[in-house]
């Protein structure tokens, strides 16, 4: 049987493939046309050949289970690409660059003059309560004032089609390697669609990343030694660490491979003896990078690393302390930061966010708990959240108390109707919810991935896109609006 879309119904949600039931969106027309001509077994066969390719290429992520310890799972992937017109992407791109520029100015300001507080735009008490503010970093001026060299911002599209920034990941955002591998696999699966669409290439990223990293080298040498610091093979993102190191031609190091010598420079242990390291792309959280300064029990880090960094002998990306802006209350201030530092209006809106620390906004939240999603400031992965419409009366009462007791720690947002994309379910296509994580690089120059990683919730109605919880991913295509 040929593939039919007569049952395809996005309902109230914005669907990125269809305008309404059975009517393809302009950007997806050619792809849907191909599917309509295709036998449903053919589609299923292409999906399984992609899955086989993923197993053989060893594209995996590690999950921890109580039963088997650490296991390597194949990366879940849906072959139907998500298509975004270039005209729309251009706006997103400039909006993200603007956002990350403001975030870097903000972090640099917080660790130095703190003008934004003095000028009354950002409240001192938010800073005082911030878990990710590192007093050890006060007074430091990293090269070009950049702290968040790599930022992964999560975008979602609401029912009216508007793209919102949901959060900014400024600590150790991951996922970019899957974006690159998804493209490789899709090329094998839909060569005919590449001819029709000519999606913009994504493979500049490793080069851009390497260039950015060399630009923060403190030594002026022709080929600075750049290393990627990984917690090791059991980390969930180990595949990505190895992949990026390989693509950049950089050494993939673990903490035990490095040491700080008496000259406060960082060295790695090689077969030819100690060798100086100029730039560290660390994929380890602040807490673990230096047991002399942060967690004493960390065996993943390098004792003395902070001394070497402060002495200006090594570049670290992202800079220690950059996570201060990775906080849901701080997030609510990003539009204000953009206006304050850049004197511009935000190019991409924040999800409307009510800050419980302000009485007016708190009163609104408390009066509308059944409509809102309440989130704590410093948790991630959906921990400690309340989804109003789904919560019981008792849960709402509990959150009312929590908010009253510690208003600074809570924000609330309206529930969004996150967009859907056609996704393979068995032998047919059904709408599934997606988000988008582009990666923004900031060094001497700034660069951004073409599109980003689209994550998809594979279960019907689910909004959970995390790969550890049954989420999958898709290739993301930025395509020219005008086609031959």
């Amino acid at each position, binding site marked *: 049987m040929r593939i039919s879309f007569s049952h395809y119904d996005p309902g109230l949600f914005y669907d990125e493939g269809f305008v309404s039931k059975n009517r393809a969106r302009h950007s997806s027309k050619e792809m849907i046309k191909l599917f309509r001509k295709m036998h449903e077994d053919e589609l299923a066969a292409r999906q399984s050949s992609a899955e086989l390719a993923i197993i053989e290429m060893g594209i995996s992520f590690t999950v921890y289970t109580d039963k088997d310890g650490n296991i390597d799972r194949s990366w879940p992937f849906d072959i139907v690409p998500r298509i975004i017109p270039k005209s729309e992407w251009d706006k997103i791109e400039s909006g993200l660059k603007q956002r990350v520029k403001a975030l870097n100015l903000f972090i640099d300001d917080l660790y130095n003059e703190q003008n934004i507080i003095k000028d009354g735009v950002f409240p001192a008490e938010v800073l005082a309560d911030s878990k990710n503010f590192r007093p050890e970093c006060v007074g430091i001026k990293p090269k070009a004032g950049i702290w968040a060299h790599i930022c992964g911002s999560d975008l979602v599209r609401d029912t009216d089609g508007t793209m919102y920034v949901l959060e900014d990941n400024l600590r150790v955002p991951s996922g970019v390697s899957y974006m690159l591998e998804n493209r490789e696999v899709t090329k094998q699966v839909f060569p005919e669609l590449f001819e029709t669409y000519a999606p913009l290439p994504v493979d500049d990223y490793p080069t851009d990343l390497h260039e950015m990293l060399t630009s923060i080298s403190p030594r002026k040498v022709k080929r600075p030694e750049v290393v990627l610091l990984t917690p090791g093979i059991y980390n969930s993102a180990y595949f990505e660490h190895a992949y990026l190191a*390989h693509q950049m031609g950089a050494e993939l190091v673990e903490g035990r491979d490095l040491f700080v010598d008496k000259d406060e420079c960082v060295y790695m*242990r090689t077969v030819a003896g100690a060798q100086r390291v100029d730039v560290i792309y660390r994929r380890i959280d602040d807490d673990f990078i230096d047991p002399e300064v942060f967690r004493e029990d960390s065996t993943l880090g390098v004792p003395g690393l902070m001394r070497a960094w402060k002495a200006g002998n090594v570049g670290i990306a992202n800079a220690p302390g950059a996570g201060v802006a990775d906080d849901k209350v701080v997030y609510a201030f990003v539009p204000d930061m953009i206006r304050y530092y850049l004197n511009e209006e935000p190019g991409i809106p924040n999800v409307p966010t009510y800050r419980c620390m302000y009485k007016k906004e708190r009163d609104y939240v408390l009066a509308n708990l059944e409509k809102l999603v309440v989130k704590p400031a410093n948790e991630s992965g959906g921990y400690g959240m309340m989804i109003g419409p789904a919560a019981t009366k008792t849960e709402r009462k509990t959150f009312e108390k929590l908010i009253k007791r510690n208003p600074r720690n809570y924000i609330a947002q309206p529930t969004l109707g996150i967009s859907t994309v056609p996704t393979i379910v068995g032998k047919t296509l059904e709408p599934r919810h997606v988000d988008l994580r582009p990666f923004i690089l900031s060094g001497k120059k700034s660069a951004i991935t073409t599109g980003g990683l689209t994550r998809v919730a594979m279960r019907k109605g689910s909004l959970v896109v995390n790969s550890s919880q049954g989420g999958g991913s898709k290739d993301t295509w930025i395509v020219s609006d005008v086609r031959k």
Partner: protein
Amino acid sequence: MLSRVAESIYWAGRYIERAENTARLIRVNSYLMLDTPKGISPGWKALIPISGLNEEFKNYSNDPSERDVIKFLIGDQKNPGSILNSLKYARENFRTVREVIPRTAWQKLNTLFLYSKENVSTGLTQKGRDKYLDRIISGSQQLHGLMASVMYRDEAWHFLRIGRSIERAEMTTRIVDVRSENILTDIDESFESMSFKNIQWISILKSLSAYSIYRRRIDVRVDRSSILEFLFHDKLFPRSLAHCIASVEESVGMLANSPSPLKSLRVIENKLNKQNLEKLKLDTLHAFIDEIQLGIRRFHNALEKQYFLSPYK
């Protein structure tokens, strides 16, 4: 190159070679069993000491039957030297150094490991065994061929080659050591016994892929001293001890700070060159092989001390 990476690559080289060697051993023994009369059949137990796994097998079974030995060597989870575990460790090592080895090599090893794991039950049947072992052997050879044709000749290549050649050298000494015991003790000079001995000598050659080369280059007849000469001293045969040690030496010579490991290699070479193989009786051959094996272990220690990452350095 990072010390930790060098160590991982060295071990990956050893484990891949070990998996291939084990597969060869089982395969040749299967053929040997078919060629020998029941009463004097050498059985399967010799494969355990050849693989250097006496202790491990004791914990596994007290019955060196075909079934137990094969299961132990191919797919036992607890046997660190089983084919399955060798490929698993090789893969784990490759996984930690994925950024320095060719992507295609990683994929090849990954596929080979997945094959060995998914088809292990077929490998344990008499009917499926040969095909299974053939896939392991050809998979390992394809992997080596692929790496030989695409790898840059930097330290990664040399550590891989050192690992592979050292493992190969050890295996050659063990095959001769264990098999010769069986052949040399028997003083029965009857025709049946002689022809059986010949079959065993041939099986030694076959386990090392040496039979046809030996016949073409050395001797059509099977002759004990010329076989020993060939397997220990021949510089051109890739599985001879002399050749393996020379490959190791060449690669170690390309590394920085190599005097100490090189010195330990020369000790092995001197011993090897000075020994007149023709005069060796069973016990003196045994003692000679012991010395060579000790030399190999000393070389490994010197290599480790010089290049690998010790946590207390």
